[in-house]
């Protein structure tokens, strides 16, 4: 057990190292340079450009740049090229903004997909199943931003609540219940929208998993014992159908970063996804690389958690 954890951690660190090298190389091989952002800008004289190159070690060989960059990252000294702010501090702020969106969205996705998918599977071919299938495919095939605009129009014109940003500007002096409600309203629409695609896909997946398990011999054995349908479905079938989702559960962590660029852009939500997107447009290498590194850490941490969970839920995996 402990040796498994040890081996797993070492393996993940090695992977992380390769990810860091490869992402560093890819960024530097990509066309365009930060020092060329705007050659027409009159303030960007050749001298400034030279100073810029020296300051950010762009004149050094690539491997030195690599070492210097990750040294800066781990000591917390890396700064954004755009505004000279500490990258870690910037990311942390954005992370705190993204977190509520992520948490609410994830909870919605996971708590709704399972009941919908399981019920569809148990009553397959029935009215409920067919409606759920229709709605899922509708939500999967219609682009998220389209649904977003329809919902925004509905909510803003019918309910008269503001939805853009994280809070309504100018409410700082209001009483705390008003403020709280304001935050909730602002949070609700983007999280629901972020979750719809996930619910549509995940509930399909739950349904097919459940259907497959319902056809297994051991489910027939459970019925042959005279167990009531609830025990057959929710004990014998469901417990097995859930196993593959343990793997997926570990993989939702990286969604913290990349999962929400479109939603954050539509709702002017100052989150991580948007920051990463803007950093890419501005060729702000330190920010891009740091975000990249953090996502890699999240992916690896997620798979590690999955591995551990699997040990707990599947008795066939023992070390």
């Amino acid at each position, binding site marked *: 057990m402990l040796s498994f954890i040890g081996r797993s951690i070492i393996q993940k660190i090695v992977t992380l190292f390769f990810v860091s090298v490869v992402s560093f190389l890819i960024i530097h091989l990509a066309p365009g340079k930060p020092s060329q952002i705007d050659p027409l800008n009159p303030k960007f004289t050749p001298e400034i450009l030279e100073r810029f190159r020296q300051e950010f070690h762009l004149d050094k060989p690539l491997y030195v740049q690599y070492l210097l960059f990750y040294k800066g990252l781990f000591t917390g000294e890396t700064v954004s090229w755009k505004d000279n702010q500490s990258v870690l501090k910037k990311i942390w702020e954005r992370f705190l903004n993204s977190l509520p969106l992520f948490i609410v969205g994830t909870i919605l996705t996971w708590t709704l997909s399972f009941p919908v998918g399981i019920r569809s599977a148990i009553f397959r*071919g029935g009215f409920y199943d067919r409606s759920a299938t229709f709605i899922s495919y509708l939500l999967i095939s219609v682009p998220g931003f389209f649904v977003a605009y329809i919902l925004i129009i509905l909510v803003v014109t019918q309910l008269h609540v503001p939805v853009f940003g994280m809070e309504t500007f100018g409410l700082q002096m209001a009483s705390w219940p008003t403020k709280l409600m304001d935050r909730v309203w602002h949070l609700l629409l983007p999280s629901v929208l972020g979750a719809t695609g996930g619910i549509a896909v995940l509930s399909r997946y739950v349904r097919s998993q459940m259907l497959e398990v319902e*056809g*297994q*011999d*051991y489910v*027939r*054995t*459970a*019925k*042959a*014992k*005279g*167990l*009531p*349908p609830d*025990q057959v479905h929710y004990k*014998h079938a469901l*417990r*097995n159908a859930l*196993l593959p989702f343990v793997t997926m559960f570990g993989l939702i962590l990286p969604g913290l970063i990349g999962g929400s660029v479109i939603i954050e852009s539509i709702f002017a939500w100052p989150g991580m996804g948007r920051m990463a997107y803007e950093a890419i447009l501005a060729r702000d290498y330190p920010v891009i690389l740091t975000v990249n590194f953090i996502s890699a850490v999240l992916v690896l941490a997620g798979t590690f958690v999955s591995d551990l969970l699997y040990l707990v*839920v*599947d*008795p*066939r995996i023992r070390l």
Partner: protein
Amino acid sequence: METPLLSVQDLRVNFIGDNTVARAVDGVSFDIFPGETVCLVGESGCGKTVSALTILGLVPMPPGKVMGGKILFEGSNLLEQGEEEMQKIRGNRIAMVFQEPLTSLNPVFTIGDQIEEAIKVHEDIEPEILRQRSIQILKDVGIPSAETRLRDYPHQLSGGQRQRVLIAMALSCCPDLVIADEPTTALDVTIQAQILSLFESLQKNWSMSALYITHDLGVVANIADRVYVMYAGSIAEQGNTLQIFNEPRHPYTQGLLASLPSRSKRGKRLHSIPGAVPNPAHKPRGCPFHPRCQFTVESCRSRFPEVCDYGKGHLSRCPVLYEKQE
């Protein structure tokens, strides 16, 4: 005359596909009397498993559909029982051991869990007594160190042990009837013999009736009181074991017996019935066996054969041989 414990009468089950209808069970009738061991024999795909599953209401519907017939258990028709009544019968009055021991146990629960659950659902029982009973029944089916085995998961057991556990589970509520669907086909030969004698001794000790499904006539000779030979969804011949083995009256039964390896036929080539079992979606008209039969006459191709009575419960669906006899 004694009344049968279970009487299946003209049972018909179809599987409805996208554009085919497979008549998997096509007019099957058999009786099982209290304490009796009845064997249902037939080639792969002739509808044995489907007949057994229908008794317990376990055929997946759709695609399955019961088209007609009766299943009388102690006089009441199981096909007309509601789901809750069936739950009281399954496992409690009629239990089943399945063909596939490797996949019939749930991989994520311990075998203790799975046995105890089978008892608990039908009986109000103290946890301590429940445990004792599970241990006892595991011992009865010949699993050593039963106390610790209860905490094992199915993957920690061998195939033979898993089949023993499934038998233990089926017998745990002392049912009146056990249906064993080829319980040994997935196991290797030495284990097969062990499981078979275990099954037989438990069933006799506890005076249960048994419906034993197999395609192995050797097994039939060992354990059956009476035999039903099934072909393509219906019963070709029925009789007690001696009648079937000594005076088979249906060409199909004769073919099956001729293909049985035996000492007297040592060194000779084994006989095999030419052709294959018809697809239940495209059965030939008339007698379903006629394309493979050496006695086929014109009427076999057009008319479904009627039952010919040889007396003492020996019945066969082959009028051609019946007329030859007279």
